[in-house]
């Protein structure tokens, strides 16, 4: 499988503030990749760099082996859905499809028309009068009908009600099942992504906090509960991500590929939510550049 997005110490600066610092990623293709992090973590910046809306301030990025927005051919390989699904309010649904046809040589007219019919959208209706969910579906149709190899979606469901959210993800997964596109989608809520992602990238304060295959991440993280003890005497192959202690009890989130042999620990499963939150907290509270420092510079 080709690499979908490859970055090397990628950085992006606005004035004096670094929105993204020292990002080195190798996001595999053929997956549904979730990009998660708190607001302001740099998710939108990273995605905009991937589709060529921004230029890097430091480092490099390559998408599907090419330079983002290097030319029409590169642009044709990637479908993008910007935050809040911008559409031309005064143009109709049908005119948006026209636009797609005129501006994309790889446009699949039949697919687009069929999709719009299945969604129940009125081709004569102006995009400005569509609901949020309908606009998101229209924007998704526009991104998919050009038959890209990679779909990049920036917080596609953030502003949608639960039903619209579910329908959007259903449509998206159906597209993946039929066409086999790679997908990178971002959200600040892990719940949105848990169902659909099989690869995860966690961004906190402009840096990569965690990346990996979801199944592997869940397999190598465990919650250990047991009597209160000092964690410095744990075996070297276990790294503690998070720890909390009461007078009598210690609870740890550890990362290890080996089995837990110490019988004093009760091992319980972790959810993806647990893992992501733990890494987010670790990134925020520890590390050379804390969020507080950046807030002052901002």
């Amino acid at each position: 499988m080709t690499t979908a997005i490859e970055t090397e110490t990628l950085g992006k600066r606005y004035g004096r503030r670094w929105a993204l610092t020292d990002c080195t990623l190798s996001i595999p293709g053929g997956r549904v990749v979730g990009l998660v992090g708190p607001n302001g973590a740099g998710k939108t910046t990273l995605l905009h760099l991937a589709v060529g809306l921004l230029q890097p301030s430091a480092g490099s990025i390559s998408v599907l082996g090419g330079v983002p927005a290097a030319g029409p051919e590169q642009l044709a390989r990637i479908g993008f859905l910007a935050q809040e699904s911008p559409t031309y309010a005064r143009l109709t649904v049908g005119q948006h499809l026209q636009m797609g046809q005129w501006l994309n040589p790889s446009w699949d007219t039949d697919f687009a028309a069929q999709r719009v019919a299945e969604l129940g959208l009125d081709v004569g209706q102006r995009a400005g009068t569509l609901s949020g969910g309908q606009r998101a579906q229209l924007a998704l149709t526009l991104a998919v009908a050009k038959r890209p190899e990679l779909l990049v979606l920036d917080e596609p469901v953030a502003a949608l009600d639960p039903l619209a959210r579910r329908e959007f993800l259903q449509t998206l997964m159906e597209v993946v099942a039929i066409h086999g596109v790679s997908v990178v989608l971002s959200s600040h809520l892990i719940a949105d992504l848990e169902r659909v992602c099989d690869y995860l990238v966690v961004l906190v304060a402009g840096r990569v906090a965690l990346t990996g295959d979801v199944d592997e991440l869940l397999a190598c993280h465990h919650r250990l509960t047991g009597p209160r003890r000092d964690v410095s005497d744990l075996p070297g192959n276990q790294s503690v991500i998070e720890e909390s202690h009461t007078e009598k009890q210690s609870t740890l989130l550890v990362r290890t590929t080996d089995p837990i042999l110490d019988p004093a620990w009760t091992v319980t499963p972790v959810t993806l939510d647990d893992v992501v939150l733990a890494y987010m907290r670790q990134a925020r509270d520890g590390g050379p550049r804390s969020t507080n420092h950046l807030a002052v510079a901002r």
Partner: protein
Amino acid sequence: MIEFHLDPSSGVATYLQLVQQVHQALQLGLLEPGDRLPTAQQVVASLAINPNTVLKAYRDLEREGLVRARPGLGTFVVGRLPRTDPAAQARFRRSMTSWLRSARDAGLSPDEIEAIYRTAFRDCFTEGVA
């Protein structure tokens, strides 16, 4: 054709839930050899889950010998669930009952007994835990 459902809060991996639901359907006779399972496209269009999850579940079922994928046609049920010998089942229930009685007589509370059971169960079937 059966329809899958997902329980996100059960702590059980999605693909395992699909496998279990196929097992249940086979047990209840809702699925019989020759029936076609829903395509990955159909499953994800209704559940909004990753298609790879569905493929993983179907691969597991194929490894168990319960289904076979026919390219271009779909995935079909080919086997039945092995029925364990009722005599073997009765034997294990008897030894379980006697263990429970000893634990109770030793002074363990029902909750303690259940905790011990759950831990041991989990350790034994580790790949079944998310």
